[in-house]
């Protein structure tokens, strides 16, 4: 066990965990940030997507020891009042069915739009291909990203 100081959502968190513990489980079990989801554990489904210095990463395969002073953003910290343009678009388009994958979808979409505010359809498909939605809300995910791209400042 070792002590880690993590920069998450603009705050400093302490976690006493083993070095190989994936960030996903530190967030969920140690810090009570359960918005980031477990789906596969092998970076195949995208439910655990968070931002590492603004880039979308799969937290289920990211060991806590590799994070250092890099800045983590989770769904809880995407916007102070849950009003990030992507979150607003998700509500407006009414994307979720069961909703379990949606935090990961939103984090992937937000990372895409940060880098590329006006993505083409193909760019959206490529950026989102790592996020599985078992309910099949893909059409609405696409639609919400297009809508969010008009709201990004």
């Amino acid at each position, binding site marked *: *066990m070792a002590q880690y100081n993590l920069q998450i959502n603009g705050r400093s968190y302490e976690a006493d*965990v*083993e070095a*190989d*513990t*994936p960030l996903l*489980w530190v967030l*969920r*079990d*140690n810090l*009570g*940030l*359960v*918005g*980031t*989801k*477990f*789906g*596969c*554990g*092998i970076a*195949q*489904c995208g*439910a655990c997507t968070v931002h590492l210095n603004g880039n979308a990463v799969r937290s289920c395969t990211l060991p806590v020891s590799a994070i250092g002073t890099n800045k983590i953003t989770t*769904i*809880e910290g*995407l916007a102070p009042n*849950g009003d990030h343009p992507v*979150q607003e678009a*998700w*509500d*407006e388009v*009414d994307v*979720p*069915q*069961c*909703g*379990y*994958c*949606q*935090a990961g979808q*939103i984090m992937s979409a937000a990372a895409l739009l940060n880098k590329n505010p006006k993505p083409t*359809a*193909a760019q*959206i*498909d490529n950026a*989102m*291909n790592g*996020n*599985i*939605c*078992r*309910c*099949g*809300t*893909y*059409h*609405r*995910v*696409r639609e919400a990203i297009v809508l969010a791209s008009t709201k990004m400042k």
Partner: protein
Amino acid sequence: MSIILKTTRRDFMKLAATATGGLVLGFHWMDSAAADIGVVDEAAIAAGSIDFNSYLSIATDGVITIYSPNPELGQNIKTSFPMVVAEELDADWSAVKVVQAALDAKKYDRQLTGGSGAVPHSWMRLRKAGATARYLLVEAAAKRWNVSAESLTTENSVVMHAQSGRKATYGELATEASKVLVPDEVKLKDIKDFKLIGTAVRNVDNPEMITGKPLYGLDFYREGMLYAMIQRPESFGKKIKSVDSAAAKAMPGIVDVVTFKNNVAVVGKSTWQVNKARRLLKIEYEADDAIENTADHDRLFKELLDSKEATVRRKDGDVDAAFKGAAKVITREYQCPFLSHAPLEPMNFFAHVRSDGVELVGPTQTPERARNATAQLLGISPYQITLDITRLGGGFGRRLQTDYVLEAAELSSIIKAPVKVIWTREDDMTGGSYRPAVRYRFAAALDAGGKLVGYKLRGVGINVGNSTREDNFPSGAVDNLLIDSVEHKSPITTGAWRAPITNFLAFAEQAFLDEVALAAKQDPVKFRLALLEKARQTPVGEIKYDIDRMKGVINLAVEKSGWGTKKNVSHGFSVYFSHRSYVAQVAEVTMNKGKPLLQKMYVAADCGIVINLSGAYQQVKGGVVDGFGHAMYSQLTFKDGASEQKNFNSYRLIRMKEAPDVDVHFVNNGIDPTGLGEPALPPTGGAVANAFFKATGKRLYNQPFANQEEMKGVSLGQRL
């Protein structure tokens, strides 16, 4: 026309104004024997000692709370149920708060999610609840203003008296309404006056889902709770011979390792610690039952198709004579593989078995079954067990099973501590429950004029009891028909998967009918319509589908897709009745650089009255994506009793790039709702296979399509 619905006072229980005032109406969501009407005070509500807790409450500040009893797994019931209540109540939707109810078998009937049945089952009951509450509020206003109830109107949680211009909000009237006698009869709205039903209403849990609030079973946490993972046998048909858990026990954070039944549970202080420690378990297994391979199933299916013994499901006319005298006979076989349900939230459940009672919390489609099975397991009364239903991260039938609930309860009873059992994805793919593989053989006899005079279907399945459905179209439209089935018993655990049986059967039936139509030199749509007309004119045996509703979706799909009128596209057709609703689909394939590409699916659905247009559109689109994805990509195969696909790197689910556009249309016929959770899925595979044939001249007989020789070099679902 509005409906006067005979209600009884026994259906409702009005609760005395609470300390804060307001109206609390207890009602049964379903018709079931109820307690006598009575007035219950706040203390009783708080103590939970009353027979009704399915509340519709109107607080003096105007907030309307509705408890939703059925598990929510993405079918959107938590939004659509309250919409029905709010419609009849003329409630201001923005002031409605929805709360998921815990299991309560005394108060709710059919508190489960499955079979696309919740909305059809509860429709009138929900309307009655809303209408009754509205009646009480209107009566209260009439009394306050000394006017007739007939002179009052309601809108947006306000009662109005047009003549005098007086208005009062529901909140203002709630306390007085709580003193009005519940009526014997209540008038429901004319469906043409619906304002909320039929509109697009956003999911009531959107704010929580998009900000990552704890909602799901996996998010549930209780102070002092332990975490556990369970190592189940590596293969079906094996049992534990010996366990060496010393190394696992020595790992940091591990509290205990216990063996029960065929399970070795590693219990500890965090998910990651138990996951790491379980890998150090040394378990020897020995054979306990048949150790099966997919190759065995393939061979067995072929043998069973020729079996002399089969269970006859339906027999009309003289099939042998019809085939003997036929001008043309077409025989085809179709096969589909095992599938994992793969809801994205892995299996999990929290249990705390104490001496004075048991607490269960988690995602289940069948809370009552889970509780009763737990009671049986522990040898206690079901009433000593409480079960809280969390939001489900998908279900697809997997959470109809109780295995993962029972494991948690049994483990908690052994370690005498609150514990959450968490399955990894690999656990569910190797030791879960699956949609079993199936093989079908169809035969059709055509006379010289191309008329279908004989029809045979044999289903050979695994563990399902009946791998076919005998009363599907074209049963009833063919003079000579035989449908039978043969089953193989396997130690591999199997269970219902979204749209049970029809998820594969529909593909096979609709693909076969396409071939038969072409062999009869007829347009596949006209061929089906002619059969339906025959079923109407000269029905054979019982007809268990509605001919008009089926024709309705066929005609709407034809119109919206431009069937038979478009150039440079290949259309494939299918139509299916499953559960209680009707769906027709046209798959549109275009050729791109010489390769077929599924561009679009046109869907016409008849689920009766659409409650929430937003939820309904997505339910259909999601159903088509699910149907196409599984027909195209997914399969579980077995080697030495173990599944060969263990996670999403080898078990393939459809991804965004592969999802075709879906154009959805609903038949507007004013029929009471007939359910939509499953019916859009079954027709998809057939429509796609038929369009693929039209485009390439090649038939697809086996799923997953992507693995078939005909698909070599083709990525049908890949968008440009």
